[in-house]
């Protein structure tokens, strides 16, 4: 599989009044064409910040380490995303080759402009098509995502639509430019399960049809199981486990991933007690030394976990985990 986007050693801190906050630390992964990567982790673990980095879209107080590199492979060659600065250059990663859909669809629609006008502007920004053609495509896309009466809806405002319809309209807008990579940040978290099921189905169809890569961010492992090819698990800014979806869900290797799966209330066994991961998520200002999970880890090995950063170990060709239990030194 050819890589669509490669992230290498991404480290990102935010300058704040309380000092530098590490949001993402030494994260590397790549996504192939047509591949769906699920990104899971607790709130604050750095999922959204990582996703926004792919579009070089983080807030002004963000500081990238010099080693951080993001390479997008386009038809006209590789693009070094983090070196893009001008609005003109950034177009390719913001709505061109990469599009993003958000948890709160209202955030991506301007309140005073109709959905159609916004879709047309977006299309014209990224191509040289006529206004009439852009409107035609917009209506087609609204129809494609299951919005009934699209020729009328196109002239409505986002606030006039229900939550589920707004989410569909946002997906339509994000896909109208035919991006190579779609970033979906908790796209169904605010929806009811019944509407979530509809939106997930729609996304599965669209992946099959457009063959794009997707970063699917969610904290819901059920949603991951239903959509992703591979899963990356983040904790306190670090990518602690990555592997094929079946492997990670059935055979998790990192104690945090194991804890997360055990904490999930399961419908097929109502008698099973709920087992939380002990302790609280540390504040980003009190980042643990060594393994970032050591303050809560039930398999804590002692000093090594407190002092040494566990390296990525391959437990399988496509399955890696950052935990001393799996590192060669301990096994030896």
């Amino acid at each position, binding site marked *: 599989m050819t890589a669509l986007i490669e992230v290498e050693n991404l480290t990102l801190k935010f300058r704040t009044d309380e000092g530098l906050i590490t949001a993402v630390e030494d994260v590397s992964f790549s996504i192939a064409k047509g591949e769906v990567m699920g990104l899971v982790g607790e709130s604050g673990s750095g999922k959204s910040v990582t996703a926004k980095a792919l579009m070089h879209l983080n807030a002004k107080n963000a500081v990238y380490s010099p080693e951080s590199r993001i390479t997008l492979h386009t038809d006209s060659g590789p693009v070094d995303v983090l070196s893009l600065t001008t609005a003109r250059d950034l177009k390719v990663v913001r709505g061109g080759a990469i599009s993003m859909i958000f948890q709160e669809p209202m955030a991506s629609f301007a309140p005073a402009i109709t959905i159609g006008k916004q879709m047309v502007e977006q299309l014209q920004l990224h191509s040289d098509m006529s206004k009439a053609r852009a409107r035609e495509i917009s209506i087609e896309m609204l129809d494609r995502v299951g919005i009934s009466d699209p020729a009328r809806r196109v002239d409505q405002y986002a606030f006039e639509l229900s939550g589920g319809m707004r989410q569909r309209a946002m997906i339509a807008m994000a896909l109208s430019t035919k991006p190579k990579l779609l970033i979906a940040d908790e796209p169904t978290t605010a929806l009811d399960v019944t509407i979530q*099921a509809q939106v997930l189905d729609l996304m599965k169809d669209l992946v099959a049809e457009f063959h794009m890569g997707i970063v699917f961010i969610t904290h819901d492992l059920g949603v991951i199981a*239903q959509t992703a090819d591979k899963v990356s698990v983040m904790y306190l800014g670090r990518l602690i486990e990555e592997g094929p979806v079946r492997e990670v869900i059935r055979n998790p290797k990192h104690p945090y991933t194991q804890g997360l799966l055990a904490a999930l209330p399961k419908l097929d066994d109502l008698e099973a007690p709920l*087992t939380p991961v*002990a302790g609280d*998520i540390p504040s980003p200002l009190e980042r643990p030394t060594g393994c970032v999970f050591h303050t809560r880890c039930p398999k804590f090995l002692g000093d090594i976990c407190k002092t040494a950063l566990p390296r990525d170990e391959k437990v399988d060709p496509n399955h890696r985990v950052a935990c001393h239990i799996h590192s060669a030194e301990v096994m030896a």
Partner: protein
Amino acid sequence: MSDDILISARDLSVGFRIGSGFFSKAVLKAVDHVDLDIAKGSFFGLVGESGSGKTTLGRALLKAVPITGGTARYNDGEVDLDLTTLSGPALKDYRKRAQLIFQDPYAALSPRMTVRDIIAEPLEVMGLTKSREETDARVREIAAKCRLNLEHLRRFPHAFSGGQRQRISIARALVSGPQFIVADESVAALDVSIQADVLNLLKQIQRDMGLTFLFISHDLSVVAHTCDHVAVMYLGRLVESAPTRTLFAAPRHPYTRALFSAIPSLDPDDRGRAQKLIGEIPSPTNQPPGCKFHTRCPHAIDRCKAEEPVLEHPGDGHEVACHRWRELLDEMVA
């Protein structure tokens, strides 16, 4: 009303007058003719899509929104109150017996209050303690039950994680010594790894203190694991109500079945077999005639469009409001 029922509602309705004009007669029926018995000491779950009326029903039982039709009673053995007409000193008394757990005390309360003050506030507002010493003792006792120590009590809520903040909000709800607690989406904002901890705490408190919970949630897996009885709402109506195990093993209402099948399976090889519901919940200001679910129900027949089903009590404790439930059950068995 039998002795083991704490809350009993009959034909309970809550309507909100909408529209801008002073003489506007448009009414939004948020809760519509609901019959409900909550047994003493139970952990009673309420589920349904957004806008189905769960919060409004919970608030009506707390006397926090006006009841516009039907009756509701509260009987804890000490007092027997008619919630429909409750006012004055009796209402004040009810306020300490029935409490709501805030979803997030940090969002709801002043960031300049210490955790001690947040928990003590209901005692002070209701005048339940006579001295600062008594208040402090009560706050410490409840805080300990919620695993908050003296050090925590001195701090401000912004210094706490989501799980700790939720424990503060539980302590605040418990401090007046209530019998009845409404927990509205109390773990919805928490991460999975923390959520189980708060649920276990709620269950433990309920058992230790013999409390009765109305647990409102949109997360069916959470409800399945914590509640002993579950009621399902749709557009203001109760459509099904049963002991948890019965409900999850053999749901009778087509809506409940659709809800269950929409839960994403954790098995990556079990993709896309959900029994998909088409469309969305209709607007409560423009409700369909007959069975309110008929616009989305795969089993709807002409009768469903004309005649509204009532909640049937077949005698086995598993109530359902659907014209065709028996027939559909036979079809499923066949």
